[in-house]
């Protein structure tokens, strides 16, 4: 399939946990158990599941932020897991991430201009003036101003920080962005702003998004395809509209039935 931009095949990741008296015993937890997904270019793939289902591990393994036990992640025809570190770094320009907690994911000692511009600096894109122009343009695009470059993260609200996180990811003009619960720490009104911003940016920059979430209402709004994970396994995948209309797996049915206020709000 030529229009898949990112393909993951048979990913396995096991964590070893100390257990028993004094941690002398150990148990294996399969965080990813033979997970395969594909992301179509220009679309949004949602990964849904409860805490502990392995969805954040999947996000981190796709970007090689954590080593896989086995399996391959194909981007642009290359297996990311087999790349040398310097090749992988080169590749990371195209693969960016937006993190869940906008309070923990921005370095409090760096100015916003430095945070957003750091990727450009690392990849040595353009000279200082060009980098600054790019950072300013990106900040403006996500709804912040040029003056914000000089400020520190603590001077911003949660929603604004998430905008900074998005600017940092997008300034490199990536092709794939993995968003790990980007709106779950935000108020609904701010959440709506960020979701709309992501949708707009996706259109403008032809982004392909992997969107990790536990909120099925948000997923319905933003995603085209979805993957439902349960205990490290993919139990169902397909088009969002199809799965919401006719969930096949019992766990998906459960999950959909648990959406709060399903009937009352739509009435």
């Amino acid at each position, binding site marked *: 399939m030529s229009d898949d931009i990112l393909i993951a095949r048979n990913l396995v990741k096991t964590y070893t946990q100390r257990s028993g008296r004094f941690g002398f015993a150990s148990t294996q937890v399969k965080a990813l158990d033979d997970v395969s997904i594909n992301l179509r270019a220009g679309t949004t793939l949602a990964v849904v599941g409860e805490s502990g289902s392995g969805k954040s591990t999947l996000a981190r393994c796709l970007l090689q932020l954590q080593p896989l036990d086995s399996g391959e992640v194909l981007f642009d025809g290359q297996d990311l897991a087999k790349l040398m570190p310097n090749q992988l770094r080169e590749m990371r320009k195209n693969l960016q991430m937006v993190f869940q907690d906008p309070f923990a994911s921005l370095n409090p000692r760096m100015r916003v201009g430095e945070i957003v511009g750091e990727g450009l600096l690392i990849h040595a894109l353009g000279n200082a003036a060009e980098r600054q122009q790019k950072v300013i343009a990106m900040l403006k695009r996500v709804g912040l101003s040029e003056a914000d470059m000089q400020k520190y993260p603590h001077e911003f609200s949660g929603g604004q920080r998430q905008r900074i996180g998005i600017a940092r990811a997008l300034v490199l003009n990536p092709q794939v962005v993995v968003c790990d619960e980007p709106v779950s720490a935000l108020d609904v*009104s701010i959440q709506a702003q960020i979701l709309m911003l992501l949708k707009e940016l996706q259109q403008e920059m032809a982004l392909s998004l992997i969107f990790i979430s536990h*909120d099925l*209402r948000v997923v*319905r709004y933003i995603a085209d395809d979805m993957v439902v994970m349960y205990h490290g396994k993919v139990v169902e995948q397909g088009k969002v509209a199809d799965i919401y209309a006719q969930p096949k797996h019992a766990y998906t049915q459960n999950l959909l039935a648990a959406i*709060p*206020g399903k*009937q009352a709000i739509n009435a």
Partner: protein
Amino acid sequence: MTDHLTSNQQVHASPLLRLENLTISPKKTPERLLVNDVSFTIQQGKTTCVVGESGSGKSLTALSVMGLLSRQLQLQSGRVLFNDGQHGVIDLCTLDAERLRQLRGDKIAMIFQEPMTSLNPVLTVGYQIGESLTTHLGLKGERLKTKVHSLLEMVGIPPARANSYPDELSGGQRQRVMIAMSIACEPSLLIADEPTTALDVTVQAQILKLLDDLKTRMNMGMLFITHDFGVVADIADDVVVMFRGQIVESGSKQQVLGNPQHPYTKALLACVPDAQGQKVLKPINYAWLQDDVEDEALYE
């Protein structure tokens, strides 16, 4: 005494809890009103949901009912009238610490958002559930044990778990333990401050159902704080919408969700994505909050 404000006859007619013109501010900056002239009532056996964004004053309102306001804050004015059955209607704001302590955990109980930080990690959950039973009802020994076990059963945890420590339980189980603690003395008022926010959706659905069942079974009034309109739709009888310390709209669930009147309520509802995915989201334009801007500007 000012404690007994009304005669017995009025007690039967009056609601379980009535907040009157509650106003809270920091002691240092009394002109900054964090809760501004808030009044609403909770009926026996009914759930009142207080909805709002962070900073709207919803948690402060709940804490003031329990008399748990931080020392840096002051109650500028207002009354919290609690209908204590045969003891009459009491203003919780004027009670001394001792009387308040007698009520807390007995007649009025509270469930907090984060179960891990509200449980004591070095005591077994059984001990923690039993604490209020010993304090308020004087239960001890075998009778205490039986009661704790039946409470655990009531919230869906195997009684053998009484000897577990909080870290041995999952998030949902911890919140169930919190609920068991709060209903131990069969309170007439239960205050729940975002009790399901930290939980997964399927667990959230179970906990909401449990709370709703217990409310009906024990005829409790519930003050339920949340920011999620989906949860409101599931559990509320009445709804109070708060914004920047003030109530902007209140009424029955059908009124507020089905036919919202205030522009802020409408705007907030328009921010919630629905499960059908048909909805066009409309973020709130906060510019309207400057007093001179017309309400209609909210929709731009």
